[in-house]
């Protein structure tokens, strides 16, 4: 039964390997990929249901008891995120064949795609800190494969930077894990947590924690470590950007959330207060970046950063409400960032450029695309009753409960500026006089690309309007994360 929890990792791994053999038979590879993605979603959904009903699943791989072997922990947090990952994946796989060239597809796009899902799901599910490093490498390597796909000039240039920065942080990661091992003598996260708590997180431990934070913060794109992100995320194919924007930074945030609620939770006055400051700067600098450009892909890429700031704010405030807010925001942001990158992909494709100054009046020809974008804007800006609002509401409630006034004011200003940066695209790009299209022949393909986005948007709307169906679980996750002993007990069973 507990073997179930390995499926979200193993299935995409197998799918990635299988489709690699059919790389030259594109129609078959496409169909298989869609089927695999749907199967993954269904299986993850089933496991989610199981865990929701029966509590966490802990798998000791190879039957080596914790804390000696590697364990996989399927709790509500990890499985919910893995499930959301698969939702985004399904939308992307249906979008991919229309957005990529056949050449790109046949150079293992689908394999990289599934292996990326493997790495992301693995990172969510593993309960071992070194194994987390390994899954980080899997997802990074797959992302390297995806980002260079196409070998465009700008693409190669940005890939170079992307690989370098990530390689750098990976090396700090593995080194820091060994430091941690030296102090607490174990790699199992529950075991580490237990031991760190036992010695009250004294001495060098907090410094080790902060080094880990910097590693994750580089992936999560937190101030002042996000510089590599915007351009790297805006140059690849939209479907790749969507996967990156929706999933990669979120793995970083997830890791911070896990590690700083479970392990390094005992010097919160110091570390978590620092997070609040960083959150404030992340929001401001991110949204300022989003206002700085007329490249629509870059605007979306920059908008990843303030969202990360919102999530950090919840971790920094560190109460049950605020942590629930972070989790809700995390789920919401995965979905909406995926949708947005796919949307601007269609816009840029339909208009033949991603320079906003050269796009206008699109709504006359692409009404559905226009209204999708408008709704996505509202979702992102946190206008009720959409999903962004619920997360923001919880985060602000949490912060005001602790009387963290400054961060709330900054969060509110940031919301306004996010809306401004997005509505510019709507006003400038969609409104305006009716003109002949630059690429009328692309209309059919563009319209087909629009529909998978509908899936993501309807989930965003559902997460907001139907929050009653989701929030109790998220609230529960918040309580669960604030009581690390539950996790420790479920893993170590002592």
């Amino acid at each position, binding site marked *: 039964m507990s073997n179930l929890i390995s499926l979200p990792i193993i299935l995409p791994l197998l799918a990635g390997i299988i489709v*690699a053999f059919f790389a030259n038979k594109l129609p078959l590879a496409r169909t298989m990929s869609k089927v695999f993605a749907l199967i993954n979603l269904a299986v993850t959904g089933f496991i989610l249901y199981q865990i929701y009903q029966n509590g966490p699943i802990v798998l000791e791989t190879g039957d080596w008891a914790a804390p000696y*072997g590697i364990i996989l922990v399927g709790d509500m947090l990890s499985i919910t995120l893995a499930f959301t990952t698969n939702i985004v994946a399904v939308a992307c796989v249906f979008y991919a064949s229309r957005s990529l060239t056949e050449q790109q597809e046949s150079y293992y796009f689908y394999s990289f795609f599934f292996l990326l899902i493997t790495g992301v799901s693995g990172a969510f599910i593993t309960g071992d800190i070194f194994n987390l490093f390994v899954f980080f490498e899997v997802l990074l390597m797959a992302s390297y494969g995806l980002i260079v796909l196409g070998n465009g000039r700008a693409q190669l240039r940005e890939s170079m930077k992307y690989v370098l920065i990530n390689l750098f942080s990976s090396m700090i990661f593995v080194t*820091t894990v060994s430091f941690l091992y030296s102090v607490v003598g174990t790699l199992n996260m529950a075991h580490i947590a237990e031991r760190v708590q036992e010695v009250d997180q004294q001495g*060098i431990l*907090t410094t080790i924690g902060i080094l880990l934070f910097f590693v994750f913060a580089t992936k999560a794109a937190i101030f002042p470590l996000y*510089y590599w992100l915007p351009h790297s995320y805006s140059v690849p194919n939209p479907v790749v950007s969507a996967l990156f924007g929706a999933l990669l930074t979120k793995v970083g945030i997830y890791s911070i959330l896990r590690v700083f609620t479970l392990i390094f939770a005992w010097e919160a006055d110091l570390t978590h207060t620092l997070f609040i400051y960083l959150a404030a700067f992340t929001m401001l600098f991110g949204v300022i970046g*989003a206002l700085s450009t007329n490249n629509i892909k870059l605007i979306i890429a920059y908008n990843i950063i303030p969202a990360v700031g919102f999530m950090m704010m919840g971790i920094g405030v560190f109460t049950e409400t605020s942590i629930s807010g972070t989790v809700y925001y995390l789920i919401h942001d995965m979905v909406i960032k995926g949708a947005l990158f796919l949307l601007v992909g269609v816009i840029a494709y339909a208009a033949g450029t991603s320079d906003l100054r050269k796009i206008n009046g699109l709504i006359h020809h692409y009404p559905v695309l226009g209204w999708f974008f408008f709704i996505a804007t509202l979702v992102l800006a946190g206008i009720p009753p959409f999903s962004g609002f619920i997360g923001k509401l919880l985060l602000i*409630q949490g912060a*005001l409960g602790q009387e963290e006034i400054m961060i709330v004011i900054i969060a509110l200003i940031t919301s306004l500026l996010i809306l401004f940066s997005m509505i510019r695209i709507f006003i400038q790009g969609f409104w305006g006089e009716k003109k002949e299209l630059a690429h009328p022949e692309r209309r059919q393909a563009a319209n087909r690309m629009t529909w998978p986005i509908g899936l993501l948007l309807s989930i965003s709307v559902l997460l907001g309007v139907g929050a*009653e169906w989701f929030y109790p679980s998220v609230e529960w996750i918040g309580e669960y994360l604030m009581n690390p002993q539950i996790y420790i007990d479920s893993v170590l069973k002592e």
Partner: protein
Amino acid sequence: MLLAVLLPFIIAIFIPFLSKWKDKIHPGFIVTAVPAVIFIYFARFLGSGFEPVSREYTWIPSLNMNIAFYLDGLSLLFVLLISGIGALVAFYSIYYLHKTEQLGHFYVYFLLFMGSMLGVVLSDNVFVLYTFWEFTSLSSFLLIGYWHYKERSRYGALKSMLITIFGGLSLLGALIFMSVITGSTSIQQIIRQQELILNHEFFPLILVFILLGAFTKSAQFPFHIWLPDAMEAPTPVSAYLHSATMVKAGIFLVARFSPMLSSSDWFFIIVSSVGIVTLCWGSYMAVRQTDLKAILAFSTISQLGMIMAMLGFGTEVAVFAAVFHILNHATFKGSLFMVAGIVDHETGSRDIRKLGGLMTFLPITATLALFASFSMAGVPLPFLNGFYSKELFFDAAIHFEQTTTGFIAFLKTAFPYLAVLGSIFTFVYSMYFFFGTFRGNANVDELPKKPHEAPMGMLVSPMILVAGVIIIGLFPQLINEPFIHHAASAVKGFELRVHHIKFWHGIKLPLIMSLTVIAFGTVLVLSMTKWKGIYRFIPGVLSLNTFYDGLVDRTVSYSSALTKGYMNGSVGRYVRLIVGAIIIGSFGIMAATNGFHLETGNLAEVKLTEVFVAIMMVIAAIGTIIVRNRIAAILILGVVGYGLSLLFVIYRAPDLALTQFIIETVTLALFLLVFYHLPKFENHTHSAKTKTFNLIISIGFGALMTMVAISAHSSKMFDSIASYFIENSYKLGGGDNIVNVILVDMRGLDTLFEITVLGIAAMAIYGLIRLRGNRKGD
């Protein structure tokens, strides 16, 4: 009640389908029916025995976000305004908007707005209130941008959105804060626990946040600048949203929270000052305008200021006058907007300089305008409702509770004069509007269209509104006890005694003030050409608009400058910043937690061979920097790798040594292969300054990691789990080589995915080599 609020939304869903048959039937007819039905539904609540009604429907109970409605006198006033004026405007729009327009869009936005506005005034739950609040801003945005092919429409839409959503977010902050403090999301519950909020240390902040929300929405000075630009919307929208209903949402909000806030001195100071300033400024600026709708826009601003001021005064008579004026303003201003629309529609121009003498061409319209504008001016005639509320306003401005001294006392002395001043200009622009349009010489030839009277359908709605003006004027008691009285009581928070509305009070101060207004006003109207030059010296709103434009432009240009300043694409710069942050952050934390720790008791002894290997590696590592020849640098890198492999041998890690040796060799070969094929480009080095800086960063980082490593090694607080592996390697793992057993068995998952990483790398490299990229970017 839920159905009444949801009805507009439900019908809105069907509008796109209906508009397919718009050649046969104008969708406006169906839309008119919606508010009419709602009006009838709520009208039955009218009556002197009215009691507040509340309803609650579950939505998101776990977040305390339920659709709770609370219908008291105040909500009832607004609900009837929204639905009543809504029906009239929808009917009017049928004749105003031609079938060639995108009617579907228009009516969807229109219904969205109506439903949201009903939601705002009925909601008792703060979050639901906020939801509807933002939706009124959004539908207003879409309606202003309805003719989005016009540059001005896009500009106005963005401006209104930025300002009102700014206020909305500020309101959100206040609402969440209040709900956190009181632990309740119901407005009535919050007001009942007002002590908690009034005595909270952050009360001033909450107050300011609420008021920012109200002032932006209700176009109070200095946030009023969006309203004139909102006039780009079709005229029915201006009449409905931007005069009768949406802009009164801010007033509603202040009124709603009045029972709680009005006991605060700050509430009095801020609200009444802002209101009075808005009144004076709006009326002063209205005279300056040449566009009919712009005159009305500034007039709306000024009237909203007057209502706001009265809410700020907070006395019983002031509050009564405020709610009374909300109703009166909706009647006369609504009809004036419709008149402006008719003039525009029938002459093709709204420029008052071109218009004039239209009375002969549009006699009915002119008559309607006459009543409405004289009512607005507050001319003391017993059949104009405007006079009643204006006189009550003067009454309120001179009867304050004599309590405090200091600044508040000063304000209380100044307000009557300012009230008169504002009213003088109100008189002036009302006359200017009417006489400028309908009297004087007609220059029909300059107008785009030959003017003639509007079709009957278009006149019905303004006629009904003007009838309202007259009926309220003649029989003010009709709406007093069953209606206005309840609204005023709701604002004060307790049952007021019934205020008697009378035309003739005897010669008292308010009447004298009214007469002063008329006397001065008439003089100013007659001598207008002589003093209009003053507007050249006090450009007024222009500077605020310049400020807004500058702010928006600067936000974008400063963002651009700031972002391009550090996001320059240089990976070296990024690494410097990232490493710098890590150094500062980690050293900071290390210092704060006293993390550094050194223990020399438990160390392996120092051996010469190892030291020798170490020194060799150091020299080689430094060599990679110094050596200029590329091939040499690669070979020197090899020395470091092989040195490491040697260390692995010395430190009892045979498997590692072997692996490291092989991999180092392969890597070196790869290095050489790649750089052999790569043409030699020119040598590039940094400036001396950058080099020094890089050196500091590098040393800092190396030192940091070394110090953490030493501390970590010196504080081994627990036994390692390694002993388990050593014990069980053979017993359970079946192998002698413990490292191998760990890799393939205990940590087999690591190894599986390590191989996966290699596989992916192989595929990626294959793609990199084989796939021909295009050189043009992407």
